């Protein structure tokens, strides 16, 4: 910190002698947050990078092995499976969730009585514990006695092993995930829709624009920044999916639903291979940064932020 000499043309807050109390108060007030940031975030990130280059079981001292963990992972077929499952999960989950949420948000955005009640009911699944919700859906997906197969039987179809079949399990968990967090996206997009100034619609109506044109020319540009933000956050959190697969299938059958974080957890805390697990953490972090970069480059650059 440099001490600046008092001069009249300087901004008020750069005068140390006059403002040191305020500075001190400011730094002290952000201290708890930054203490946590250092102890439980910054230092652990650096340590994770280091542990990724070692052989460590939490008990004995870590032993430097260079790039070995990364080489092992690259040759580990389950690692690639888990990465693939996670990408598939995200690629389907994010657009489906956003699209469904937008449809329902448009439906709700019509000066309805009882809108508050509808909104509240739509976020009820989000408020529920994912592990608990996972168990509920395990029951619904149950092959013999589950409700879903009951419906299939009613309409004359064969029973499906929703979370016991290799091909379907991942998609069943995606469906549960879409369902659980849909309400969150509905509320967010509804708020975005309500930003659209009504006089814009009226002006368009005078110009003879139909519903479809109004949607594309007015609604889409106005909501696109929030829609895009929602996509990015949703992508980042879906790449870290853990609770639902853990509770519903624990990765099975076989490796059908072994998503990245689940495999990382198992490597670290069941097999005590902290080296490969840390390397996986580093890979996930880099992967998230790359995905975020590309989504900003290819979609973010087309977003219209200037509407005034």
């Amino acid at each position, binding site marked *: 910190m440099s001490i600046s000499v008092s001069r009249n043309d300087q901004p008020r807050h750069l005068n140390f002698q006059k403002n040191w109390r305020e500075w001190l108060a400011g730094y002290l007030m952000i201290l708890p947050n930054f203490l946590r940031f250092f102890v439980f975030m910054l230092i652990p990130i650096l340590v994770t990078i280091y542990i990724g280059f070692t052989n460590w079981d939490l008990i004995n001292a870590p032993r430097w092995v260079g790039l070995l963990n990364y080489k092992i992972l690259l040759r580990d077929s389950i690692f690639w499976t888990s990465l693939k499952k996670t990408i598939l999960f995200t690629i389907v989950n994010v657009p489906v969730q956003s699209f469904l949420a937008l449809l329902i948000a448009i439906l709700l955005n019509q000066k309805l009585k009882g809108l508050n009640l509808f909104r509240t009911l739509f976020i009820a699944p989000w408020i529920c514990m994912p592990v608990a919700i996972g168990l509920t859906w395990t029951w619904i997906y149950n092959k013999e006695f589950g409700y879903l197969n009951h419906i299939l039987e009613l309409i004359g179809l064969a029973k499906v092993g929703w979370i016991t079949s290799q091909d379907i399990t991942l998609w069943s968990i995606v469906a549960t995930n879409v369902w659980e967090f849909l309400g969150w996206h509905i509320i967010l997009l509804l708020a975005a829709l309500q930003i659209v100034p009504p006089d814009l619609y009226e002006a368009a109506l005078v110009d003879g624009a139909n519903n479809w044109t109004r949607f594309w020319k007015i609604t889409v540009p106005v909501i696109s920044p929030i829609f895009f933000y929602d996509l990015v*956050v949703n992508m980042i959190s879906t790449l870290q999916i853990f609770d639902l697969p853990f509770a519903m299938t624990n990765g099975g059958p076989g490796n059908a639903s072994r998503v990245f974080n689940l495999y990382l957890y198992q490597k670290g805390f069941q097999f005590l291979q902290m080296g490969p697990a840390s390397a996986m953490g580093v890979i996930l972090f880099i992967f998230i940064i790359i995905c975020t970069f590309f989504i900003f480059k290819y979609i973010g650059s087309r977003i219209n932020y200037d509407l005034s």
Partner: protein
Amino acid sequence: MLTLGQRQSLHKSMLYMLIIFLLFIYLFPLLWQLSTSLKDASEVFSGFNLIPQKITSAAYFTAWSRFNLQQYLFNTAIVALFILIGTLISCGLAGYAFGQLQFPGKNILFYLYLATMMVPAAVTLIPAYYIIIKLNWVNTYYALIVPFMFGNAFGTFLMRQFFMTLPKELSESATIDGAGYFQTWWRIMLPLSKPALATLGVMTLVAQWNSFMWPLVVTQSQSLKVLSVGLADFRLYFSVQWNSLMAAVMIAVIPMLLILILAQKMFIKGIQFSGVNR
């Protein structure tokens, strides 16, 4: 022929019917979970009726007595409560500092901190766990509470945005009157920020109540498990008694559903905030 008014009201009632239909389908899994939890063990496997023929609380008693639910509930509540208080104080302070005070490096620090929302939990998990081991905190409440009670980026952001809307003169006049910055914060700013604190409070409460990965890693003993971890175990032992399992699920989600009913507006504000106020 219908008049314009009649057509509009027909349109409205069809819209309502559509929304109620969608909501019924959407909430069906929760209704089915409630229904199963109230059924007799024999009825669980014999019928698909949503309303049980005989409503019984037997499954709740089984879940409550055979499993450590009481302890899990207590642990979850106590952990969530401490983290809630800690988060409100830490984020209230940081939000005030970032939103109202002036100090060198303020904006850089703020945006740097904000960027940490992108960091996946998996990257910090193992060293954070090692810190807990070194502190001898494995299987203690400290392990569950301390890493989360000193605020977070989302909460600090929320509080900062709120404090930025307050006029600067307010805190300046208070400091001129001789009150220190902390006094001003406690006496004037905190009472004014009740709406923002309430929003942050309910969001924190739900996030903590439902959190899973960290408690799973740091607690092994039965007496320290939280509900989410306990429930994940149930799956292994309880897998065919669906009514008891659904009763346990109900017990885990009812507290948060009650809070949703009581504080619906705050949840909606909290969600909207996360997107609209970038």
